[in-house]
């Protein structure tokens, strides 16, 4: 177990290293220059050169990347445009000259939004996705199965940006049934927090739930014909309890694995949902950073997103191993 964790950790570290290198190389190869952006609109060439120098952008890219990695592990001091020092503690993801704050703090301050959104969406996914999958697998071929399958088909096919706007138009704007989507810290006003996130979570959850509904339905149907399920019924166990105790357990593996990937992806920021509903989460931060060529933030958000994916994929593997004693970790 411990060796497994260590090995998995090392693997994850290498993957993240590769991702950071790729992101770094790709984004620093972009045509526009962070120094130009950091320096004001009236900067001339010599000034920009000075700014480049003080930001360390005139160093070879490998040196810059080395500094970046060092900052990530041990923290470093970054020089501002004017050459003054900004302390950036480990894990230092760099400093955003557009936001004028360390990338990590920019991410952490937006993280509650993303976390709330991810949590809500996850709840919807679990209830709607797996619940629907369960019901329609149990009633395979029935009218309710067809209705639910149609429902998930729509979910799998609809665009967040279409559904998001359409629902905003119907439920918020024309009727006022729901409050405007937005984020209020739950500590401030839990009701407003829930109300503001209701629609985004529902939409994000619904669209993603479809995949889970289909997967869990297919999985359940497959496992339903396993011998051990029949054995359980042969013992005199009822249908529902058999499926809850045996079928669901047998079907869980792939669902959990997909769930791990999904949680990781959600925590890395739901780019489109956050854009559509105007939630200032990590995803919106990332998209904005890309459009504003805020390279440190782009690399930082890419890394964070990848980090969550890697971590939760590993967690999912652990859960699968815990669910299925046949799976050996090592």
């Amino acid at each position, binding site marked *: 177990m411990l060796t497994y964790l260590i*090995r998995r950790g090392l693997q994850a570290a290498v993957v993240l290293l590769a991702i950071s290198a790729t992101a770094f190389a790709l984004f620093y190869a972009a045509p526009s220059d962070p120094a130009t952006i950091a320096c004001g609109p009236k900067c001339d060439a010599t000034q920009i050169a000075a700014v480049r120098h003080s930001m360390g952008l005139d160093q070879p890219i490998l040196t810059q990347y080395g500094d970046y990695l060092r900052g990530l592990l041990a923290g470093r001091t970054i020089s501002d445009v004017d050459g003054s020092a900004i302390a950036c503690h480990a894990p230092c993801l760099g400093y955003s000259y557009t936001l004028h704050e360390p990338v990590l703090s920019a991410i952490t301050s937006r993280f509650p939004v993303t976390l709330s959104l991810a949590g809500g969406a996850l709840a919807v996914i679990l209830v709607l996705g797996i619940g629907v999958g369960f019901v329609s697998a149990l009633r395979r071929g029935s009218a309710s199965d067809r209705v639910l399958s149609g429902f998930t088909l729509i979910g799998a096919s609809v665009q967040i940006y279409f559904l998001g706007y359409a629902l905003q138009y119907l439920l918020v704007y024309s009727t006022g049934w729901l409050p405007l989507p937005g984020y209020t810290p739950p500590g401030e006003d839990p009701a407003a927090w829930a109300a503001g996130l209701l629609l985004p979570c529902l939409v994000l959850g619904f669209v993603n739930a479809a995949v889970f509904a289909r997967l869990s339905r297919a999985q359940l149907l497959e496992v339903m014909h396993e011998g*051990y399920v029949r054995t359980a019924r042969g013992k005199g166990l009822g249908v529902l309890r058999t499926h809850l105790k045996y079928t669901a357990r047998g079907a869980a593996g792939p669902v959990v694995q997909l769930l791990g990937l999904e949680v990781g992806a959600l925590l890395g920021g739901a780019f489109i949902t956050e854009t559509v509903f105007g939630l200032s989460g990590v995803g919106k931060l990332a998209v904005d950073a890309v459009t504003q060529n805020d390279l440190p933030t782009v690399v930082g958000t890419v890394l964070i997103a990848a980090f969550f994916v890697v971590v939760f994929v590993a967690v999912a593997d652990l859960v699968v191993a815990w669910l299925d004693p046949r799976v050996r970790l090592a």
Partner: protein
Amino acid sequence: MTPQQDTVPAVRERQDTVLSVRDLTVSFTGARGPVTAAEGISFDLARGEVLGLVGESGSGKSTVGLAAMGLHDPSRTTVSGTVEVVGTDVVGAAEAELKALRGARIAMVFQDALASLSPFHTVADQLGEAYRLHHKDASRDRVRARALEMLERVGIAGARARDYPHQFSGGMRQRVMIAMALINHPDVLIADEPTTALDARVQRQVLDLLAELQREFGTAVVLVTHDVDMVAAATDRMLVMREGHMVETGPTHRVLTAPDHPYTRALIGAAPSLKTVPGSRLPTVDVPEPKSRTTARARPDEAGPSLAEVSDLRVEFGGRRTLLGRRREPTRAVRGVSLRLAEGETLGLVGESGSGKSTTARVLAGLQRPSGGTVRFDGRDIARAADDTALRRELSREVQLVFQDPYASLNPRRTVEEIVTTPLRVHTDMSRRERRDRAAELLTQVGLSADQLPRYPHEFSGGQRQRIGIARALAPRPRLIIADEPVSALDVSVQAQVLNLLMDLRDELGLSLLFVSHDLAVVRHLCDRVAVLHHGEIVETGTRDDVFERPQEAYTKELLAARL
């Protein structure tokens, strides 16, 4: 359990009948319309009686068993007739009624023990659940104690109760299933092929256990099997099924000795036993009375030039370096085996599962790299053939394989023609036409017809597929054929066909044959010499008669004794 005298059903008192099946018909709705898997089945089972349900694969045995449990999926199955379990008609009964019945009055040991035990729950949990379901007010401790008791009863140490099924061997799992079925002392037990896929020794243990428990609890048993020997040994009455219909029923002794129906006769004769004449043609369903061989097989010269030879062969698996530098313990599959196969000879390789038979065969075929020892074919060192494509290609001209699984060894996406001509493409520069003609010729040789060339494997039955596999092996006109359990996946009557074919071809073509099997009777029937493998080592080698009549080693004796 010795065969009893025929008891006339009419004489038996009503309350003594624990299972009464009348005119049972089961059909499935499939993609191609309904499939009737059982039709007009009727029988009675008295308390304490053992009924053997015999028939080849797909004849509807399991279907009848499941119908008795009321376990057919109602949405896709139509069941008609009546199945009365201690007075309750299972057909059309309410789920609640069935729940009370299942596991308590009627229980089933399902066909595949590994698949039938939940991999996610400990053995004790699964046993305990079976008990608790019908003893609602039993305390936790009581349930646990009962589960342990039942485990011990089937010979599994209580200490292993917290283990998961995958940590058990096949025989142990089978015993767990039996324990689970009997934990509530049911009136009827349906044991669906409880011993297939088990070694002879384990098979024996399981059957003995079943008989013991059956006697003890007075349970009536429906023993589903396709093994005639087993029926003879363990049942009072038998019922023969074919394609969903009852062919014949009656007291076991009577049916076995004087079968009414030719099918029954063929079924009984098809499996070689330790008493059949070696090398004789076996009866099959299509040819119940085969012509006997005109010329007896001449004993090949054992001392003659050796065709293939391995000495001190060792094969290890695994033991790869892990990331943290720990080496895992390698599996030592073959530990110093020495064998010799003379030109024209048939050598049998027997041993229980995992003893290294296949591994040895694969080394000889150039598919597996040995870890040590020498391998020679016709005097040439072929140890490197597994890694050296050119060498293997040369070798494969002379040595060909017939595989165990007729389903897995034929590529489902290639036509029979493509499959059979592959060796020709590799080894000859025949034109397409010529290859085709040769393939047609080969098919006829193995008893199929040439117009089946454009078909795909899934359109053939298991026996036919095995023939295709044999045709492929014959294509390059090899000198040695290695047959790795070529009949173990087949029904007895089909098995007989394939064995007959192999014997015919061997004689016609003067082939040498390395025949791998765990079935002693089959080996005895076919082989000139026999080598017994145990845990990767040769325990005993000798001529057929020496090994079967005068076994020297304890292990060999044990193996022979386990045969029913």
